[in-house]
């Protein structure tokens, strides 16, 4: 077998395509009040939390599934899904890593995240989410000393109810769109972060999401609050085992930055994209929204989206505080039959607010990529500005690239600048690299990484290397 054939062979076996055999506890199939009560009950939630869920469910019943997005998908039967599934061995929560089910640890090892070592080596506190329940949190002690709270959402509901009550649902209300509201009703677990006033979080906080049990929708809920003058960088990485059935993932992520606070949220998403014929793969319908609530606050989203059959997400910033800043850096790569409709919304409400959008879309194979974005400068947002650059790279003429920016400038003191280009890798560039000894795939990888550079630079070091590799791997087999 020559190298190329081997590469293809390798691709066929999705690197993270295994599943761990662990007995699950499941909520009964379907979606109704009883299931929501079951979830709330098994998590021993207080009444206000159950009320929050039920209120969302009431609203959900009145909502229609949206259909304006470009990627279409077969109808999901929401009554045919399981809304809660936890590894059985989690009934008695482990107090430390040593108590974990060895199979779980084995799974993480295959994923390339040996929890203890890597966490220590990288100085990252890892809050690993396995299916729906957080199984381990490390570095807690060190963080606790500074007053930083980094725990699972379930734990936060128990131990920090005041904070959760005060902020949960303030950025993504229970009355939001279809999938966000569904999440509010049935969310199982996720991460909770609180950085107290004046504290710069000393390490990158990180969560790895996985989808494991088949036919289980995943409904993560993450809430990050950066109090006055604080700083936090949060990393989210995702890999999922291979499944034939399409799996729905509808997470909600809420970020709140108070006066002078900064939140940096980075994602590398590499969920199973389906096979080369478009069979299987994850539906990634995520709602991510950040509120720059205080003056001089800043929220920065960085995402590298290479996985999932369908990606549909718009990490957004509401710039409410005066002088606040919103940023969105995105690389989205689609190959084979993948579809992505992604972008951001920058809503300028406060004075002197600034936003920046850098989006790089690469489509190959039979895939389809849409950048959809909104920049809205309100009439009160004096002296604000936005700069947007979205570039698309097409490889072949079986794929599509679609750029749909919405621009609304209602303030004469404010500037919006938008640039978009579409291009391909030129024969000359390829020839040049090949003349210097690279094969065509290496050359493409190199050029594509160059194309994405502005975004890759935004990622924390540990992530940047992984992301760079991912960019190359995602496009393997796309040049002939």
């Amino acid at each position: 077998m020559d190298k190329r054939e081997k590469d293809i062979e390798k691709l066929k076996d999705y690197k993270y395509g295994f599943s761990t055999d662990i007995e699950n506890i499941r909520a009964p199939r379907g979606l109704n009040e009883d299931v929501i009560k079951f979830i709330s009950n098994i998590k021993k939630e207080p009444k206000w939390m159950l009320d929050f869920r039920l209120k969302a469910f009431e609203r959900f019943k009145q909502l229609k599934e949206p259909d304006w997005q470009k990627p279409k998908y077969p109808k999901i039967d929401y009554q045919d899904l399981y809304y809660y599934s936890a590894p059985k061995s989690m009934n008695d929560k482990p107090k430390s890593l040593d108590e974990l089910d060895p199979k779980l640890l084995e799974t993480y090892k295959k994923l390339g995240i040996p929890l203890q070592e890597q966490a220590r080596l990288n100085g990252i506190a890892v809050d690993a989410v396995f299916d729906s329940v957080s199984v381990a949190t490390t570095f807690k002690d060190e963080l606790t000393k500074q007053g930083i709270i980094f725990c699972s959402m379930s734990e936060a509901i128990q131990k920090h109810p005041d904070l959760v009550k005060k902020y949960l649902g303030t950025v993504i209300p229970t009355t939001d769109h279809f999938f966000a509201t569904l999440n509010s009703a049935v969310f199982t677990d996720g991460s909770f972060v609180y950085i107290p006033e004046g504290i710069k979080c000393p390490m990158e906080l990180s969560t790895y999401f996985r989808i494991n049990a088949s036919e289980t929708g995943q409904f993560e809920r993450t809430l990050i609050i950066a109090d006055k003058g604080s700083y936090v960088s949060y990393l989210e990485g995702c890999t999922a085992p291979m499944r034939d059935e399409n799996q729905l993932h509808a997470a909600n992520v809420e970020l709140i930055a108070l006066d002078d606070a900064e939140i940096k949220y980075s994602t590398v998403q590499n969920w199973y994209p389906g096979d080369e014929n478009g069979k299987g793969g994850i539906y990634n319908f995520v709602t991510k929204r950040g509120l720059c609530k205080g003056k001089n606050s800043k929220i920065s989203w960085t995402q590298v989206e290479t996985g999932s059959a369908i990606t549909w997400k718009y990490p957004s910033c509401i710039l409410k505080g005066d002088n606040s800043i919103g940023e969105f850096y995105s690389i989205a790569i689609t190959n084979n039959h993948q579809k992505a409709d992604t972008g951001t919304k920058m809503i300028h409400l406060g004075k002197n607010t600034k936003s920046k959008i850098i989006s790089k879309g690469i489509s190959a194979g039979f895939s389809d990529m849409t950048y959809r974005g909104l920049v809205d400068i309100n009439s009160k947002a004096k002296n604000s500005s936005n700069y947007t650059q979205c570039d698309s790279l097409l490889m072949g003429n079986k794929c599509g690239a679609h750029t749909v920016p919405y621009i609304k400038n209602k303030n004469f003191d404010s500037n919006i600048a938008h640039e978009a280009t579409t291009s391909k890798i030129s024969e000359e560039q390829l020839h040049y690299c090949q003349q210097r000894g690279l094969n065509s795939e290496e050359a493409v990888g190199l050029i594509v990484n160059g194309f994405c550079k502005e975004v890759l630079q935004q990622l924390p070091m540990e992530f940047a290397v992984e992301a760079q590799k991912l960019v190359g791997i995602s496009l393997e087999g796309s040049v002939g």
Partner: protein
Amino acid sequence: MLKINNLSANIEDKSILKDFSLNINPGEVHAIMGPNGSGKSTLSNILSGKKGYEISGEVLFENNNLFELETEERAHKGIFLAFQYPLEIPGVNTNIFLKTSLNAIRKAKGEKELDAIEFLKLVKEKARELKFDEEKLNRQLNVGFSGGEKKKNEILQMSMLSPKLSILDETDSGLDIDALKVVSDGVNTLRSKDNSFLIITHYQRLLDYIKPDFVHVLMNGKIIKSGGPELALELEKKGYENFN
């Protein structure tokens, strides 16, 4: 080392090279001189494997049929082309590009790949030799470089990759006298009994600095005369029009 036998090349029915033959032995420096449109760049494009030409004839490089090798395989075997117009590649760091390229070639030769430290040591050394601004190594490849800087970058790459056969396609054009000196020093350093050069140029100027063993005059796709270095001077005096 390089044997070109009866090479003809057409592009969209237009004949550019006609029955072109040339033999380069190890250690030799050949200069090909010719006016615009004589087929000089086509020759370097074909030798480096650029697509889009209809070709007949035979080119052997160390007894390998060149036309069976992909562009990068030719590079692996030791053919280097200094481009007439080096490409700008946005976002790609020059150092990273060079390291990737060097290691690809070393790997193909069965040599050990260099790690970052070894590579940096080497590239800095070479950059110093060639008076190439080290700061530029951390910039995007050729983006915003002046014409002279781009050409120097080509020579830096050449000296990093230590090819057996270097083809210099009008490397002298657009260079000032200092840059010309740097470029020719780079070439002369690489000269050895094993390494050969094919220098393609319009003017005799470069040959003052790089003394060729053979000079060939190319007109309308054919070598009309071959000789020693004195031929270049004769050509310079008479001009292409009166040369025949």
